[in-house]
């Protein structure tokens, strides 16, 4: 039964004891900060130039157990994980995100886990290993919860992960499920203090009477441990489902957006947040529009955008007022009357919005297209790319089976010259903004061997189907690429296909 919304939410216990999993680091030691990778984005997305680097399975609970005992993680990564492709619902990857250097790659899954992969260190005699990622740390970020007042289960599924810029040896990331955002610290420890004589081996204080001398403890090397510790829990601020989190360029605040509201948080303060957008009508019967995604401008800490289910984007300036209920800019494309149908609104609903690295453009993804908007032009996008226009005649079936509500995300490459987004049948698309060329690639186990060049795929649209084409009717709509990520400076991409994470890179000449 429906319960009316309580004024105060039940305070759920969010305290997590230090959660740590011992992990073996692979290869030679290196400084955890790592140096920024060289820029190599000039290559663009030339057709057919992508190769599979590795296919990683997010470790299941079973493999997590074995990892604690197993000494060689790589063995697990290469044999165990790759050979066992059983997947449960909990293993389905729900978000993928590179950190700011590209050294780490985080995935979140429906089971509430976060798995962090670390890039294999480059070495001159192992050129073929370039771009390989291995498991670095795994931790349970969110647990399933029950809201007793609303009689409601809160899923543990990780909706989004965002990295904070690195400021010391530790890494920080935000992860969120439908209701609660958490700040995690991921740090390494390879030394431990030894030789205390005030405590015994088990850490109990010795009887002071028995201590005759004081010994200075020394740091001794030990097996490398990667610890993930929850540092902050930002709870009880969202009535609806959180769809986006975005770290501000001031690095002190971030925002979280749900279907009807956007909140602004300070990283240091967990018990209060500022509501900066609220589109909830006084009378919920009048509700016709929801917030679908939101993001801060990459350089201007006062500016952010949010997209809506009506296909519009609002740019807000937090300097204008505390509550940004009046937008500064409103981006909307007039509807094409020749394409009007009952599904017009549904397919124009924006599933993702991303600022370009430069901050000059906004990219939006709707059901059939990706659009690039210039911040200085509100009345139409400057570029529109068809992702899978052949589905336009299938919208009724896609509505029927609910695929039409799938939320595809989109990403920019490091130099904002190429954009990438997913489709069905494990296909994903890249569009080169300069050459206007596009390519369809497939992330599948069957069709890609490590180091083999990916063959561009083609979907047959009407007429005769050629040999290597696939017809629209044989596309598998259960295999969808919703989440992808592009390395911040190199041509390395991560593509999540259910419980598989594929890493591709452009071919080295």
């Amino acid at each position, binding site marked *: *039964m*429906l319960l*009316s*919304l309580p004024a105060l939410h039940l305070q759920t216990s969010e305290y997590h004891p230090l959660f740590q999993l011992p992990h073996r680091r692979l290869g030679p030691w290196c400084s955890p900060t790592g140096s920024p990778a060289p820029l190599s984005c000039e290559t663009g997305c030339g057709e057919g130039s992508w190769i599979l680097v590795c296919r990683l399975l997010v470790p299941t609970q079973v493999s997590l157990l074995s990892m604690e005992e197993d000494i060689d993680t790589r063995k697990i990564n290469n044999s165990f994980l790759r050979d066992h492709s059983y997947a449960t619902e909990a293993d389905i990857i729900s978000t993928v995100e590179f950190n700011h250097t590209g050294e780490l790659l985080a995935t979140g899954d429906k089971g509430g886990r976060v798995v962090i992969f670390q890039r294999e260190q480059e070495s001159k005699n192992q050129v073929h290993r370039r771009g390989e990622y291995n498991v670095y740390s795994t931790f349970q970020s969110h647990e399933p919860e029950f809201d007793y007042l*609303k*009689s*409601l*289960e809160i899923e543990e599924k990780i909706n989004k992960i965002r990295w904070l810029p690195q400021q010391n040896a530790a890494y920080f990331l935000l992860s969120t499920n439908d209701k609660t955002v958490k700040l995690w610290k991921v740090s390494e420890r390879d030394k431990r203090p030894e030789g205390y004589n005030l405590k015994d081996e088990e850490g109990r204080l010795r009887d002071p009477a028995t201590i005759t001398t004081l010994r200075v403890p020394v740091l001794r090397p030990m097996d490398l441990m990667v610890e993930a510790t929850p540092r902050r829990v930002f709870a009880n601020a969202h009535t*609806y*489902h959180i769809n986006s989190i975005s770290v501000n360029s001031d690095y002190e605040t971030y925002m979280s957006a749900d*279907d*009807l509201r956007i909140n602004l948080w300070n990283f240091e303060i967990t018990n209060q947040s500022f509501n900066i957008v609220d589109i909830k009508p006084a009378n*919920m*019967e009048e*509700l*016709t*529009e*929801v917030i*679908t995604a939101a993001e801060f401008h990459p350089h201007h800490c006062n500016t952010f955008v949010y997209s809506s*289910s009506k296909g519009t984007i609002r740019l807000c300036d937090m300097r204008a007022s505390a509550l940004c209920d009046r937008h500064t800019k409103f981006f909307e494309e007039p509807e094409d*009357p*020749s*394409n*009007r*149908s*009952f*599904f017009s*609104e*549904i397919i124009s*609903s924006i599933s993702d919005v991303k600022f370009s690295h430069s901050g000059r453009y906004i990219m939006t993804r709707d059901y059939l297209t990706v659009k690039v908007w210039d911040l200085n032009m509100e009345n139409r996008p400057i570029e529109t790319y068809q992702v899978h226009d052949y589905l*336009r*005649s*299938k*919208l*009724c*079936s896609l*509505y*029927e*089976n*609910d695929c039409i*509500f799938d939320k595809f995300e989109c990403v920019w490459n490091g130099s904002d010259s190429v954009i990438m987004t997913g489709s069905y049948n494990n296909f994903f698309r890249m569009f080169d903004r300069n050459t206007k060329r596009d390519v369809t690639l497939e992330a599948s186990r069957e069709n890609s061997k490590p180091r083999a060049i990916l063959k561009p795929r083609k979907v047959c649209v009407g007429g005769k189907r050629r040999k290597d084409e696939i017809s629209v009717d044989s596309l598998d709509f259960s295999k969808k690429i919703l989440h992808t990520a592009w390395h911040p400076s190199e041509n390395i991409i991560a593509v999540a296909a259910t419980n598989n994470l594929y890493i591709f890179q452009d071919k080295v000449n």
Partner: protein
Amino acid sequence: MFARGLKRKCAEDEEAVPAYSLQRQSLLDMSLVKLQLCHMLVEPNLCRSVLIANTVRQIQEEMTQDGSWCVPVPQTAGRASRDRLVSTEILCRSAREGARPAPDPGDPASELQVVPAAQAPGAPPGGAWDGDGPRENRGSFHKSLDQIFETLESQSPGAVEELFSDVDGSYYDLDAVLTGMVGGAKSGQDGLEAFASAAAPPPSASCKSDLGELDHVVEILVET
């Protein structure tokens, strides 16, 4: 009850008009079933619910405006056959191009028959389902549908799956409707025929009131 052959002939003769209204009706039915399912969840996906509700509003507004031309809807509303579903693809194309002929003023019957279109099968409970419809005509399917909704409303959302996983014969019809009305053609024919006749309310009912029902559904949906 009209003979099947007659319906078919009718649809062929008038081509685009009945095809379009039929598909629109089918889309409306589908949307209302989806909304009903959203209603069962404590916290439905708000974006999806809003988009479906807007679609229903749009269809019903259009039906209110130019309802007078959709002739064969009442006869065929409950058909739920494979033809109906496949042909809905026409809706994916432009809703307005070509499929918008002038109303036929010469046919007084059409005006009478239009109205039920908006109140046909999938209307929310409290409306056509357990309201004014001639109760004696209710088929077993209709009853089981009400039963299911009653049961579901008193249970946690987790029970939905359980319930649907071991459906018996009488529940199968709903299952078919829920998974896309395709299966209905196979074994659900009788139930659906009955469903159709039961769901046709008196012609005096207006589309406006149905919009009110919709608002009610939306209200329930978003109450969480």
